[in-house]
């Protein structure tokens, strides 16, 4: 407890200082010791239950084609990965990366006794809890707790509200659409002045306002950190022009925001962004095609941007979805909720081509028969990469 408090006081005093200093000094008083020290992880959540079988297509599997006469993707349409597997035709960027050995695919990641509710399933993915336990912290939130004390901008979600994945007990990620908008909302003069007015000496009568151990101290800490973070991210990103070539749609803009913050060399280790909805009960082909096209375009721009700036080696992109979908198409040209699913990892130089495919695509029997990799096991390597 003592150490925690001391750490808090250090950071609190930094936050205090940041509001008094002239703006151009902001970036300079972040101590080097608090900088990120590993790769940057970008998590792309495919919300709604992406159909894994039409993402990585088992192009030699008779059951697949028999069960999906209408929505199955033909072998000659798929982008060939191996003799037995091809990618959805819209995913050209992933195909290119795979051929260069820069993309890994982890099949059948899931948990036992799958729950077909989106919410519960996402809850399990985001918390990485055992499937019969209910946790209130996320797998990245616990990373923030363990590794990122004093870095309120270590985990960022590009959205208006924060996912459970980024909630730790002590430290939580920060949600923003872009740095400018966060700055404008968080940095209203009233909030800034109000927060500043409460930062007197710690032994003043309003002592509990400074004590992180009390709820009000926690609220003040969150408020001050948000304001300081908004300043920090805005000042940092203002200095760098944002990259070009990003598609003018939701996901394109979100990746542009991520890229601009990475290029601005912020101390962020984890970015989190969601795309969807992949809940394709009806007319799956059009919807998945459109979403994949957006995803492909956004990632194409992002990959280029990172490579052009020599940062590709520092970035790890990961996708996941709360579950896959059933093998058989339904009567509406869609698919219903299934179980485990694949994860994609964009890894610069992950080795020889296709080396991280953990198993053949075997989930094409009408029942899931092959063994499932637990979510937690799949996350483990990410923890070590981000350091």
């Amino acid at each position, binding site marked *: 407890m003592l150490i925690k408090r001391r750490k808090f006081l250090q950071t609190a005093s930094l936050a205090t200082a940041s509001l008094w200093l002239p703006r151009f000094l902001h970036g300079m008083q972040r101590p080097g010791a608090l900088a990120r020290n590993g790769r940057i992880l970008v998590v792309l959540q495919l*919300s709604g239950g992406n159909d894994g079988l039409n993402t990585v297509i088992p192009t030699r599997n008779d059951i697949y084609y028999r069960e999906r006469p209408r929505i199955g993707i033909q072998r000659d349409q798929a982008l060939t990965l191996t003799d037995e597997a091809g990618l959805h035709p819209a995913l050209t960027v992933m195909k290119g990366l795979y051929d260069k050995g820069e993309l890994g695919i982890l099949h059948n990641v899931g948990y036992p006794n799958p729950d077909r509710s989106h919410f519960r399933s996402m809850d399990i993915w985001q918390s990485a809890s055992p499937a019969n336990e209910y946790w209130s912290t996320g797998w990245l939130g616990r990373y923030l707790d363990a590794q990122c004390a004093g870095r309120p901008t270590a985990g960022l979600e590009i959205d208006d*509200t924060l996912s459970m994945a980024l909630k730790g007990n002590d430290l939580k990620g920060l949600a923003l659409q872009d740095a400018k908008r966060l700055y404008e909302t968080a940095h209203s003069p009233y909030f800034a002045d109000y927060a500043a007015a409460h930062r007197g000496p710690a032994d003043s009568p309003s002592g509990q306002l400074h004590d992180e151990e009390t709820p009000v101290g926690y609220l003040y800490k969150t408020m001050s950190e948000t304001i300081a973070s908004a300043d920090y991210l805005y000042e940092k990103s203002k200095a760098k022009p944002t990259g070009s070539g990003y598609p003018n749609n939701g996901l394109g803009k979100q990746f542009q925001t991520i890229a601009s913050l990475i290029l601005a060399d912020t101390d962020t280790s984890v970015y989190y962004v969601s795309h969807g909805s992949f809940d394709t009960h009806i007319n799956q082909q059009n919807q998945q095609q459109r979403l994949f096209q957006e995803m492909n375009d956004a990632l194409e721009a992002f990959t280029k941007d990172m490579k052009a700036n020599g940062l590709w080696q520092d970035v790890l992109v990961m996708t996941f979805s709360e579950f896959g979908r059933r093998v058989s198409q339904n009567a509406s040209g869609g698919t219903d909720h299934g179980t485990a699913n694949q994860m994609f990892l964009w890894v610069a130089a992950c080795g020889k081509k296709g080396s991280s495919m953990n198993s053949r695509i075997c989930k094409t029997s009408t029942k899931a028969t092959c063994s499932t990799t637990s979510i937690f096991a799949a996350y483990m390597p990410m923890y070590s990469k981000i350091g």
Partner: protein
Amino acid sequence: MQAKLQHLLWRTGFGPATTERKQWEKLSEAAWWPTIKKASAKVPEYLDVADNAVTGLLQGAGAIGKMQSDTLDKEQKKKLRQASKDGIKNLNLRWLEEMVHSEAQLREKMAFFWHGHFASLNINILYQQQMLQVIRKNALGNFGTLLREVSKSAAMLAFLNNQQNKKKHPNENFAREVMELFTLGRGNYSEYDVKEAARAFTGWGFELNGDFVFRRQFHDDDPKMLLGKTGNFEGDAVLDILLEQPQTARFITRKLYRFLINEEQLPEARIDQLADVFFRSKYDIMGLLDAIFTSDWFYEPANMGAKIKSPIELWAGIRRAVPMQVGNPESQLLLQKALGQVLFYPPNVAGWPGGRQWIDSSSLMLRLRIPQLLLDSAELDVRTKSDDDTDMGMRDDALERRRRRLKLTPDWKPLLDEFRSTESDELIPAVARMLWQIPNASPPRGVLERYTNRSDHDDQIKTTMVQLMATPEYQLC
């Protein structure tokens, strides 16, 4: 009004109502708690918002006989889903109005506690409103009765898959959660107990109209051994055995202590004492509340202003402090979602984690911006995450945009009257005493004077109210 009285009204309800301040101020301290109890004495009115078509479809079908949901055709099911979705939305807003306006504050507050304790997700409006009535009716009664009625509700049996719990093919979900989340708490039973309890609950199900049914043909009537007892137990016997464990009283008492008193400082000896009272009274909830709200420690400074308001408590509390018309009631659904607590949509069967988990940078900044909506007609500028369980892949962005404008029309008069004779220089501390619960908190005068309108007394009152609500201190009760 005294800080102590405000403390009591926050913990036994959704905060002091400005319109009732005068009446409360007339009462002596000894009369506070009896008055609160009396206001909640009546059996609550059934909140019935379900579309007649839905009720007819389900009730009618139920009357025909032992019909299952597969007797409905596709069109009927679709209609049911849409009408249910609208119904749950209406039930949410209807109950919220009770929280804001009902005299029976204690009952609604405790129902709100049980709503989180017996968290269930169910898209069937009829089952949801039946369940809500179970918890509102029993909120202050006997916990054993409450447990039994919840366990036999269609909402819970469906949510925890007990319809699928059959002899030789047990589904343990229901049995596990009854022990882990509703009675004993994790670590107070074994996996073996879960298996045996699941066997005892085989055959427990419900009819389409929500009525409980025991399907004997699916029941496993071989002997079971549960928590050291052996017998041909059925579901009721399991609940009896669970209620015989003092641990159940302790588990509930501890959780209630966190909800009512303090989430972070938990004096174990005191909780044990309260649990003992609860157990010996055979789970009389009002008896436990008596012990809590007539104690001296309830008013200890460490317990005042110590709780972070949940989003529902925050919003209902604002509406009680500033009487207002909400021109676009559905906007309150967006507000709930953006702040992280939508009634009838708990994150999972464990309910809302609460406390500090309510607060992150975006939820806090949104909380701080809400009071400003009382003064201007700005939009709630937020886009929430999609919810595929209800959207089925088709998010309605236009709907969310329509919900961004709350169209609030505050009735400032009672507040202006309250502070009419307060000197301009005294206004900041006086309003802070009304709105804040932290002992000895002192508002930063200089800052507040800069950001309030001091040229006109009425405007000064309004802006002082708003600015003092847009603070970390106001998040606490």
